[in-house]
């Protein structure tokens, strides 16, 4: 079986401008939603209390809401979680009453008992405001570290033009994932952040594979223009790109279906990341590379260095 039967190199670069316009549009849309709607951060980042309660029958959310309101929990969200018998209750943190917030879960528990229906508390999570702030900072630092690490590695392994275009392409993915989360107001939690960072590392792979081919083709052939070489590199790797992403996506779909609510948004973030990863690392990174003026000379020189045994490059023959 062979899905991809491509006779000639597909002239991707001829349409580079179109791809970049599409990218820019989605990118700015994502930024726009991020700016206007903002992320719906989980209590891990904002601080507060989340409780998951299971009932043996369908839970009456209105009754629970009313009871909680009567007991003084005004800003509480009560929603179904996974099934109609599972309820999630979120109580935001109230400023100035930190010592009391530790006891919130017990008070809410008491209110739920008052509503009746034999609530079973499955999960309680309380995060103090100081912890939330730290988690948000740590998340940003982790993102920064990943970006710097990848740029340095690619610059060292390939060429700075490769590094810059790969990281721009993949940051654009990240912004788009965040844009989706902002637009649909999906909950942005720690596992989602982990997924976003994993996607960053993963979809850079894509650019690496194409770049590897670009380098190889530059070295092997003469008389091809840079766009032609990039077209050739993309065409000859496209089958692998799609099959790989398809396989990873199979795993992620399995998580979406079987993973339950705890893994749902994690899997959603991965799905968006994988789909846009194919597009951006191939069709965003490569035109960037072209416009940054990558050329044959950039690879002929390092080859000389290699002859002196500086680096071991398995890709060159």
């Amino acid at each position: 079986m062979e899905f991809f039967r491509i006779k000639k190199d597909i002239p991707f670069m001829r349409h580079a401008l179109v791809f970049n316009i599409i990218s820019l549009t989605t990118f700015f849309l994502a930024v726009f939603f991020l700016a206007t709607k903002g992320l719906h951060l989980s209590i891990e980042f904002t601080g507060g209390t989340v409780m998951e309660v299971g009932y043996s029958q369908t839970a009456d959310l209105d009754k629970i809401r009313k009871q909680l309101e009567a007991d003084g929990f005004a800003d509480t969200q009560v929603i179904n979680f996974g099934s109609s018998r599972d309820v999630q209750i979120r109580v935001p943190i109230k400023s100035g009453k930190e010592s009391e917030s530790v006891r919130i879960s017990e008070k809410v528990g008491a209110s739920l008992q008052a509503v009746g229906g034999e609530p079973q508390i499955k999960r309680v999570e309380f995060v103090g405001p100081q912890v939330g702030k730290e988690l948000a900072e740590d998340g940003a630092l982790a993102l920064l570290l990943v970006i710097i690490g990848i740029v340095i590695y690619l610059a060292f392994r390939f060429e700075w033009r490769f590094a810059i275009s790969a990281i721009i392409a993949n940051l654009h993915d990240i912004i788009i994932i965040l844009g989706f989360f902002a637009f649909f107001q999906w909950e942005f939690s720690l596992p989602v952040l982990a997924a976003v960072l994993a996607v960053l590392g993963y979809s850079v792979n894509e650019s690496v594979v194409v770049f590897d081919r670009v380098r190889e083709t530059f070295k092997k052939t003469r008389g091809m223009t840079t766009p032609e070489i990039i077209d050739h590199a993309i065409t000859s790797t496209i089958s692998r790109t799609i099959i790989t992403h398809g396989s990873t996506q199979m795993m992620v779909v399995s998580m979406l279906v079987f993973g339950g609510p705890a893994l749902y948004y994690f899997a959603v973030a991965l799905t968006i990341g994988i789909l846009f990863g194919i597009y951006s690392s191939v069709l965003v990174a490569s035109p960037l590379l072209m416009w940054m003026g990558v050329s044959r000379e950039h690879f002929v020189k390092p080859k000389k260095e290699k002859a002196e045994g500086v680096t071991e490059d398995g890709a060159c023959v």
Partner: protein
Amino acid sequence: MNRNPLWKNATVIIALVLGLLYTLPNLFGEVPAVQISSVKATVKLDLRLQSRIEEALAAAAVKPTGLFFEPNSIRVRLADTDTQLKAKDVIERALNPDPADASYSVALNLLSASPDWLTSLQARPMYLGLDLRGGVHFLLEVDMKGALTKRLDSTSADLRTLLRDKNIRHGGIVREGNMLSLRFRDADSRDKARLVLTDNQPDLDLVEGQDGTDFKLIATLKPVAQKRIQEFALKQNITTLNNRINELGVAEPVIQQQGADRIVVQLPGVQDTAKAKDILGRTATLEVRLVDDEASANQSIMEQAARGQPPAGTDYYVERGGSGLLVKKQVVLTGERLTDAQAGFDSQTQEPAVHLSLDSAGARIFKDVTRDNVNKRMAILLVEKGKGEVVTAPVIRTEIGGGRVQISGRMTTTEANDVALLLRAGSLAAPMDIIEERTIGPSLGADNIAKGVNSTLWGFAAIAVFMSVYYLLFGFVSVTALSANLLFLVGLLSLLQATLTLPGIAAIALTLGMAIDANVLINERVREELRNGVTPQAAITAGYERAWSTILDANITTMIAGIALLIFGSGPVRGFAVVLCLGILTSIFSAVVVSRTIVNFIYGSRRKLESISIGQIWKPGA
């Protein structure tokens, strides 16, 4: 031409055997058990205790399926949960005849059901995080400012004694925020005091000052001393928490320092968070203060004090018996000076009593205070969350030296036990706040495991089917390599006893999904070489070799993300990062080395290889 050297084959086989060996315990599951550990530092577990347990179980006709003696605990393995509960009761009764003064904690636990030879190889099942096994997680923050204030308070008491011993007159010692201010009538006594303090209190920085006609000496704690006090406070709090949690009877509690001022407490299997919180958050500290007897005898002052207006320098408390009394604000002694508290009986009256032992500094202070205040009353207070309670306010009969103090009077045996326990375990060096709490019910934990495992298995199955159909035999080899990857990963996680969380299981699934990338790269390369008209054997060699650098680059970028998460992630996300990083290592090995070994085994020795089973090779020209 595609043959492995012997060492490579041997490496692969050894790796597979080890992977299988350390993965095995996960397949046996767990059986109920009872865990016995000591709650007192003086009570050690020994073989005599083990035989006592065996006898008790035999007497109750409970047959354990195994008994394991470890330095810190004895575990009894049982057939089912019914016998587990019965065994717990039996052992509890046998070892702790007096429930109020328990020497051992007897807790329900789970033990690996794997055979003994596996356990003796240190092959244990993966260590499940709280989100998978259920339990409570707390993050506590120690109030370091509180620790420093407390130290300053007790230092001010030390200073008073010191100055009096040296016959230096002073006009009062007061704590003002982070400093102590000492007043003197003249410069001469201030200079003397300064000399004495420099000699005896090396922790203090002294600055001279003048306030009107008063000469002042401002004492602050040196930064080094502050740091030491904070470190001590944290350690002391961890010890205290250990003691308190031992009383709870939790099988495998985790109490760890996190950062400079935080403590993580994990109590697997505990569902009653309210009780756990009560026990952890009980910031009871002991204070010994003098009773203002004159004012307490005055009816009108007492009436005013009961309405909330006690005279300056005193606090109003209601004693256990019900009568009110005024206690001086000045603290004579704090719980820091207490080394032990045991319930017992008064040697003369046979009344229930609590015997306290003080450290040397505490003993000296206590001696001085009791000498100067014979026939006056002294109050022993338990301060909990800023509110004090007078446990007892006995009359001082004689000077008490030697640091052995007995509290007696109006106490039952149970009360004496409670007070002793609270004093023993209850003294925190500094107050703590719960800043993070996570409770996961046991059913949710089991549910999370099932969901994580299901998504991994179904995803794996989908990939396996696709790969085998698309790449035929090479696809099957890739799937075998992927299974080996799973084996290595689970084996490695079990060997390292890294905490597996739900995001960790997701990371296993994700690494498998990403690991197949390497095999796709290789297979596509092999096909491409064949398409270019290379012989099958050469195509295999070239495919693996050319794909290698790409595989390495691709995995290193993911590794960078994993390491960043490892550094900055906390809790469950760290579990994700650990699995991601380990998974990348195992997947490079299995996708490249293991799959190559299998391919070489199948095709490597054939000289005239006409074709290989890697699916249809379509050529543009054809």
